[in-house]
C-alpha cells in the first residue's frame, strides 16, 4: 500500500500543508482545525523565516492529545509535554508548529543553560558593543514557536528570567537593554522526560506557567499506522511482530526488568530501515535496539525478547513485499 500524501492549498499560504489534512483524517475536531486556518490567515510568516517552519518527518498519532494541545495553544497557553521515553514529545511539538505554520526555534536545555544563552548577550561587532539575540528573543519578536527541549535539565534558578515571558505578562525585560512584548502568536512548548535516574524536578513557579500534557505511550494501532506510513512494503505479518517486540520491551520497562535504554522507537524504525536496505534482521536490531543498553545482562534480556519475535537469520525479502 502506498502512503497517503497529505497536501492542500490554504488561501494565502504558498506552502503545501499536509498536517491539517492529516488532522482531518485523524478525526480531530473540525472547529479546532478551522480556528487554526483562521490564525494562519491572520499571522503571516516572514518569507525569510519560512525555512524555520517545520516539515515533520513523522506525524503524531493520538487524537485526544492533538485536541488538548491545539486548544491550549489557541487559548494562548504554553505547553509542557511530560512523558517517558519514546512517546513522541518532540514529534508532537514539531507537528504543532507545522499545523500552525509557525517558524520554530529548538532550544535544548542543559545544566549550563542561562539567561544569556536564551535571550541574548552582549557581543562586539564592527567596533561596537551590540546585543546578540538569543533564540527566545528571536522567537518572541518573530511570532515563533519555541520548543524548549528537556526543560528540566536546566537549573531552575538560571531560567527564572523566563517567568515573565511565559506568564500573562508575555514580556522579555532585558536589564540595561530593552523591554519587549511577545508577538501575539508566540508560544512555547516545553518537553520533559520524567521518571528515570538523573532527571530533575521542575519547580512550581515554572510548572504553573504551562498547561501540562502527560503523553501516553504509543498504542499498537498508532504504531501500526506509523510503521505502515514509514514502510509501505513491510509485510503485515512482520509489522505485527515489530509492534509486538516494542510492546514486549515496553512491558519489561514497566516492570523494571530492563532500563528504558533499549525501549527506543527511533532505534526500532532505524533498524527496520537497515533491514530494508538489506542488513539481516538480527544485526539490524542489534545495533538499533540491543546495543543501546550497555549492561551485559540487560542486553541478553533484550536479545531474548527479539529472538522470540524475529528469527536470527530472517532476510529482507522475507520481511518486505518487493
Amino acid at each position, binding site marked *: 500500500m502506498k502512503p497517503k500524501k497529505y497536501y492542500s492549498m490554504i488561501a494565502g499560504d504558498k506552502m503545501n500543508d499536509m498536517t491539517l489534512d492529516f488532522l482531518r483524517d485523524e478525526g480531530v475536531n473540525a472547529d479546532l482545525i478551522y480556528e487554526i486556518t483562521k490564525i494562519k490567515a491572520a499571522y503571516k510568516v516572514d518569507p525569510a523565516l519560512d525555512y524555520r517552519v517545520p516539515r515533520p518527518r513523522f506525524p503524531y498519532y493520538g487524537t485526544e492529545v492533538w485536541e488538548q494541545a491545539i486548544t491550549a495553544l489557541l487559548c494562548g497557553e504554553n505547553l509542557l509535554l511530560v512523558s517517558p521515553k519514546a512517546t513522541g514529545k518532540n514529534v508532537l511539538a514539531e507537528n504543532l508548529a507545522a499545523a500552525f505554520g509557525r517558524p520554530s526555534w529548538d532550544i535544548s536545555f542543559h545544566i549550563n543553560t542561562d539567561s544569556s544563552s536564551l535571550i541574548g548577550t552582549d557581543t562586539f561587532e564592527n567596533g561596537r558593543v551590540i546585543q546578540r539575540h538569543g533564540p527566545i528573543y528571536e522567537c518572541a519578536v518573530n511570532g515563533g514557536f519555541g520548543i524548549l527541549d528537556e526543560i528540566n535539565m536546566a537549573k531552575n534558578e538560571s531560567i527564572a528570567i523566563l517567568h515573565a515571558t511565559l506568564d500573562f505578562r508575555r514580556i522579555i525585560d532585558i536589564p540595561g537593554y530593552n523591554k519587549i512584548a511577545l508577538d501575539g502568536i508566540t508560544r512555547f512548548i516545553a518537553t520533559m522526560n520524567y521518571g528515570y535516574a538523573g532527571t530533575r524536578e521542575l519547580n512550581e513557579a515554572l510548572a504553573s506557567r504551562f498547561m501540562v500534557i502527560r503523553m501516553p505511550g504509543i498504542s499498537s494501532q498508532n504504531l501500526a499506522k506509523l510503521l505502515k506510513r514509514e514502510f509501505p512494503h513491510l509485510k503485515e*505479518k512482520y509489522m505485527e511482530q515489530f509492534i509486538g517486540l516494542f510492546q514486549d520491551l515496553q512491558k519489561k520497562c514497566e*516492570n523494571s526488568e530492563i532500563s528504558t535504554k533499549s525501549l527506543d522507537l527511533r532505534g526500532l524504525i532505524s533498524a527496520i530501515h537497515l533491514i530494508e536496505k538489506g542488513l539481516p534482521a538480527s544485526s539490524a536490531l542489534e545495533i538499533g535496539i540491543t546495543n543501546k543498553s550497555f549492561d551485559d545482562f540487560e542486553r541478553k534480556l533484550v536479545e531474548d525478547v527479539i529472538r522470540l519475535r*524475529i528469527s536470527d537469520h530472517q532476510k529482507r525479502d522475507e520481511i518486505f513485499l518487493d
Partner: protein
Amino acid sequence: METHSQEKKRAYNIIWNASEDYTFRPEFEVFDDRGEVDLYWNFIVGAVHKYYDYRQLQEFFDYVKQDSDHPFYEELAWISLENCAYEKGRHDRPVLEDLRRRASERVFHNEYPESFYFLIDELKKAHFQRALGIQTQVSEQVSSILDKLEFDASLTTEEIIQRLLLIIAEYFPLNIVPKKKSFFKPISLIRINLHLREKEIGRLFRKPFTDVSLISFLFNKPKESESNQDTLGNSAIQLKKNGVWRKIQEQTETRQRETIHNRYGASLLAETQTRMLEQVLCIGNHKDCHLHITRGDFDPKIESEYKKDVFKQKEKNLKHFKQNFASNNNSINQLTNIIKNTMLIQFEPSTYQAETGLIMAGRVWKSLYLDEKNVFLKTTRDDIGSVSVDILLDASGSQINRQEILSSEGYIIAESLKRCHIPVRVLSYCTYSNFTILNLFRDYDEENKNDRIFGYHASGCNRDGLALRTALHMMAKTHYDHKILIVLSDGKPIDPYGISAGGSDLDLNFYSDKVGVNDAAFEVRKGRQSGMSILCVFTGQDEDLPAAKKIYGNDLACIKSPEKFADIVGILIRNELRNL
C-alpha cells in the same frame, strides 16, 4: 544443579515475556546442558500460562508431586503442553516455527540434560521428529503413548488434565503418598485415584528413580495386552522371578558407566575395583549411587560438545590466570610465606634442662651439693610428622560463572603448598545422573603437574556427602601423619537423585537443603573424628553462607575480595598447622 541466579532471572524474563504476566512465579525453568537458559522451552512455560488456566495445571502438578517419580510425570505433561502451546502461539509469533525446529535439533543432538527417565528422552525425540515431519522409527509403545500425548490445541485446560490423567492411569500408575492427599480437589482426580488403588499390582515393577522399570515396561510389555495393567504387573513379577530383571539392571548400569566414561574420561580404576569401592562407600544415604574416579583423559576417538567445552574452559582458565598473573603470583608468594613462617615457628628447636644432653658447666655444683640431676641442656626439635593436603574443588553447575576464579584459587593453594614441600593432591567433584565423578588433577608426588588444575570444568549437580566421604576414604589410605582436606565449595549440596532414607516423604528424599547439608555435615564430623582436618574456602553467595557454616563449622574462610585470598587462606592453614 543450582543455576546461577542471573540465568534464572533471564529464564524468568522469557517466561514473563511469553505469559505477559510479570506477577507469575514460575515453578519450571529450562536450562541446557551448559546451564544456559533455553529460549524455546522457557517461552513454552510462559505461553502455557498465557493460553491455559495455570491454576488448574498447578493443581495437577501438585497432585503428581505426591509421587516420588514426579519429575517423570511433569516431563510427560510438558511434552503434551509444548504441543498445545506451540499450536496456539505460532499464530502470534511466526518465529516459533523456527525456534521449535532448532529446539528439536538440540533434542536430537542431546544438548539438553538427559532425563533421569530413559522413556522421556525417547518420547521427546519421537515427538520432535514427528513435529518436523521426520519418519520415526520407534517402538509401537512409544508411538502409541505419543499418539495420545499430542493433544489438539483446541482442548481446554480441564480436558488436557483429564487426558493426561487417563494416560498416567493407563500406562504409569501413580504411587501416592497418602498424607499429602489433601492437596487435590477435583472429583475426577479422586475417581482416578481410587481406580489406581485397585491396580496395586501395577506398582510392583516401579521403583523411585530407576529408569530400569520403565525400560523393562517398555520393551517387555506383551503386545496383546496393551491396556491390561494386571497382566503387565504379572509380567514384571515374572521378570523378577526368572532373573531377567537383574540382567536388565546390570545392562543399564553398564550403559550408564559407558556414558559417564565417554563424558568425563576413562576411569582410573578397573570396573571391579570401582564396584568394590562402591560397596564400601555407596551405602546409607548414598545407596544405589555410583562413583567414577578419573583423570579427565578423554577418548580421542569420541567427539562431544562436552569435551569441546572442557577444552574451551581450560583455555579460559589459563587466560584468566595469565591476565591476573601479577596478583596471582603475589598471592602465591604471600601464602607461601605465611605457611613457611608458620612451619618455621612451629618447628623451632626448644631447649630444656634434662638429665642428659650438653653439660652446663655452671650448674655442675648443683649435682654435687644439691643432688640436682638436671644439669644438662637438651635440645629437641618438635617433629610434628609428615603433613599432606588434599584440595577438593566443587565442580558443580553452581560454579559455572566462577570457573576461572576457582581454578586460579585451587592453583594458588596447590602451588604455595608445593613451594613449602607439602605434598598436595587436587581433585574436583560433581554429580551426573547417579554418578559422583571425582576428577584427579594432580597426586601427591606429581609436583610439576599443578597446571592440570586449569582443566577444571563445572557441570552437573553436587552430592557433597559422597564426594567428601570418598575423598576422606582416599586420604585415610595414605601414610601421612597429618592429613588436611581443603574444600572449595559453595556449601550447597543438591542432587535430584535423592536418598532413600526418607522413605516415601519427598522432602526427606530430595538431596538438597536440609537433607544435603546434614549429610555433608555428618561426613565432615566423621572425618574430623577420625583425626583429619577439614577446611572450607567458601566460593558461593552470601545467602548460602549459613549452610556452609553448618557443614564446615568455624574452619571456613569467606573470600570477600581476591586481594585478601592469600591472607585469609593463610590464616586458615596457619591455625590448622598450629593445632597439629
